[in-house]
């Protein structure tokens, strides 16, 4: 059941009608059932794994709370991490590990039988596992109290707006929200509808329009010249931003209508002027998770520069592998880690603030950030490292771009024009969100403008959006 489907619309409207009509005691039960129905609509067996993760983390947190010794707390924490990471490793990484062992053995002439399990990857497992691990660690470090009400905790793990692709929430932020009664609030409804509308616009009018072009070129990169590769690289950068931030907006909007507040996951990352700044604005819930639960425990930036560099490299390598069991994701993470290390070293040694004015610094910083980010997306999107290098190699051989090819890839004249208009709208809105938020707020206060903007947005999506079950890119993680 995708957010961008009529099926979800019917599900959500029905759910809201029931949810808001209920009393305090029954609201959590209905929300939990709805979350499991939503999740199990992909595959019923996925629900078992979600329930297992919930039960394990709920129980181990209570064990930590009841333990009188530090050793007991630690044992419960280790048990929770072992089970959570064990499940994740089995369903997501085991086959990758086996394939690499077989490949490595083959290099030395050994033939190992293929024991790959071929398990289906449960949707959103990386997201809800990390959310659960975050809770376990928060309880262990006494940042939050262990939740005693199973129903409350089960809602926290399975909350359907953010279950499949985040934002990865924190227990301290979400658990109190599941303990209160939720009533329909018109300001929340307004804000939620606009978030959903803007998210659908990004997904259906931009991401899904450029998706076929990117897919076509990346499916057989050796067949296209450098000009098409460059086009695909840029379009994928647009696609993944619109797809993922669009999803996050819809997730926040649906939660908001229900009276819940989810954290902001994106803050116009392509307007940033350094890689460090980019990572404060891209997939914020994941990068802050890694900061709090890996980077800081490793020592963060408190030690020497070498130690900080090591910590950054570890965090980004793990972040790469978190995305998927493939060397392309690892390469993406390592590239970003290296970029951040170089950026820190350059900032320390070159002291550019002494000899470059702020505007020039920002312009150079933007080009640097974009170069690393775009190169990273090549690894991220390519189906193999070999294909990624085909893309990099062909970027040196530019040739003409033919309209016939663009059309065949799905960008005929009107689609091209409308994509330009959609990107312009996105740019204007994102620019204001990043640099002129007060102006947007002032527009929101105008009497009929929000209503008019709402109608315009709805018709723009209806007339120029792609309808059809196009999955979100981050569902695969």
């Amino acid at each position, binding site marked *: 059941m995708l957010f*961008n489907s009529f099926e979800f619309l019917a599900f959500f409207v029905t759910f809201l009608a029931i949810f808001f009509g209920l009393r305090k005691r029954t609201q959590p039960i209905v929300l939990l059932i709805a979350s499991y129905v939503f999740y199990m609509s992909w595959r019923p067996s996925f629900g078992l794994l979600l329930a297992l993760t919930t039960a394990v983390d709920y129980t181990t947190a209570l064990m930590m709370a009841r333990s009188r010794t530090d050793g007991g707390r630690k044992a419960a924490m280790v048990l929770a991490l072992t089970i959570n990471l064990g499940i994740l490793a089995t369903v997501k990484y085991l086959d990758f590990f086996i394939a690499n062992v077989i490949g490595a053995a083959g290099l030395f002439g050994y033939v190992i039988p293929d024991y790959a399990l071929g398990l289906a990857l449960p949707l959103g497992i990386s997201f809800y596992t990390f959310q659960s691990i975050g809770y376990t660690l928060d309880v262990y470090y006494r940042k939050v109290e262990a939740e005693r009400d199973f129903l409350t905790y089960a809602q926290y793990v399975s909350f359907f707006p953010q279950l499949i692709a985040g934002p990865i929430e924190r227990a301290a932020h979400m658990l109190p929200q599941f303990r209160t009664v939720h009533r329909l609030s018109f*300001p929340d409804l307004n804000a939620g509808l606009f978030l959903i509308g*803007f998210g659908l616009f990004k997904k259906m009018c931009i991401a899904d329009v450029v998706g076929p072009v990117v897919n076509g070129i990346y499916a057989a990169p050796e*067949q296209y010249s450098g000009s098409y590769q460059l086009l695909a690289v840029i379009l994928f950068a647009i696609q993944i931003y619109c797809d993922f931030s669009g999803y996050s907006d819809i997730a926040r909007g649906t939660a908001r209508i229900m009276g819940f507040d989810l954290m902001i996951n994106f803050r116009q990352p392509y307007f940033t002027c350094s890689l460090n700044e980019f990572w404060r604005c891209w997939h914020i819930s994941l990068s802050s998770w890694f900061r709090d639960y890996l980077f800081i425990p490793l020592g963060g930036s408190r030690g020497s520069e070498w130690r900080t560099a090591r910590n950054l490299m570890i965090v980004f390598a793990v972040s790469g592998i978190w995305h998927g069991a493939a060397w392309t994701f690892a390469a993406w993470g390592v590239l970003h880690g290296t970029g951040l290390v170089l950026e820190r070293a350059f900032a320390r040694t070159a002291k550019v603030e002494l000899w470059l004015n702020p505007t020039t610094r920002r312009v150079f910083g933007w080009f640097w950030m974009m170069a690393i980010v775009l190169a990273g997306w090549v690894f991220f999107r390519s189906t193999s490292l070999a294909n990624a290098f085909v893309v990099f190699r062909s970027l040196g051989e530019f040739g003409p771009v033919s309209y016939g090819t663009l059309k065949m890839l799905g960008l005929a004249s009107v689609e091209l024009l409308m994509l330009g208009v959609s990107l312009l709208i996105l740019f204007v809105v994102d620019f204001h969100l990043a640099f002129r938020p007060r102006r947007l*707020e002032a527009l929101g206060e105008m009497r009929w403008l929000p209503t008019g903007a*709402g109608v315009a947005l709805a018709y723009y999506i209806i007339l120029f959006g792609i309808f059809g079950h196009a999955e979100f890119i981050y569902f695969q993680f």
Partner: protein
Amino acid sequence: MSNLPRPAVDATEALGGSGERDAANRSSTAQTRIWIARAGIFVLVFSAVWAALAAAYVLLPFLRPGSVVIADAKFDTLVKMPMFEPQDRYRIMVFGHSKILSAFRARDLDAEMGPHFRSYNLALPGEVRFLPILEAALAAGNTPTHVLLTIPWDDKAEVDGPAALLRDDNRLAGTLFPFRTLPRDAALFLFQNQERLAEAVRDVEAQRSAMIDDRGWYFIKSQSHYPDDRLPADYSLPTDNAARSQPRFISERSRARDRLEHLARQHGFQVGFVPGLFREGEVAPCPSSDQFRLTAMSERPLIRVFGPDYFVYPPTLFADPQHMNPTGARVYTSELARLLKASGAFD
């Protein structure tokens, strides 16, 4: 990374109208009244726009893309008028998608096959299903002796239930908002006919009439961007693969096949597969052993495969990467006529 801020407020929400700050200052009743007023205005404006676009869609049919005009004309006019004469011994209906729409010239085939042979091009642009138009023709009393397919039936074993239809967002959106393509069609129409709008409106009607007069053949001029409607001789696309052949996969189990066989038995026509077409270099030529193939797939009703799965032609016979120009259409039809004559099925 090390000093990641936790954002506090998202200005996107501010677009949704009164923020929480403002909301807190208003009484709940006032809020409700304002919201209901806004929702009412939203519904009114939304409905007004819907009505305006629906009216434009109905009143300006010439804005619709050529594919829709052609499909509508075939459904509403061509197959509903008497298609065959009593003396026609062979009554042929040829089905396919837009490639065949532009490649098969029914009148040319009739001329080559001799008297008492009458054929129609019932290919539909952007559409691989042939049963709806065949059923429409049969319902109007137009019974063929032969149904020739260029693309096979689909492999769906079951008919789509209501749940599947509800999951078909594209179809659902098209039903709720039939004018969905109107703005892009209008933009394209205006762009292509900037200085001759009145003539362009007449052209649409002329093309429609010409298509009916040509028994369904239609040259897709709007997609032709090369001089004389000919692709350059060395034209190629990055996706071309001259080493890969493209055999047709004809599914054994198919609801469409069951239905077609039922209709064939009921109306006594035969079914045949005839070759489609590709551009040279786009795919590998069909194996030579297939060139003179005549295979019976079924005896009751008779389903035959005539010749190879496809013919291959030089780019100069194409107006765009997929569709043939009028010269190409003559060449394809002529080759098809030779194949049908050689089969002996129409002696």
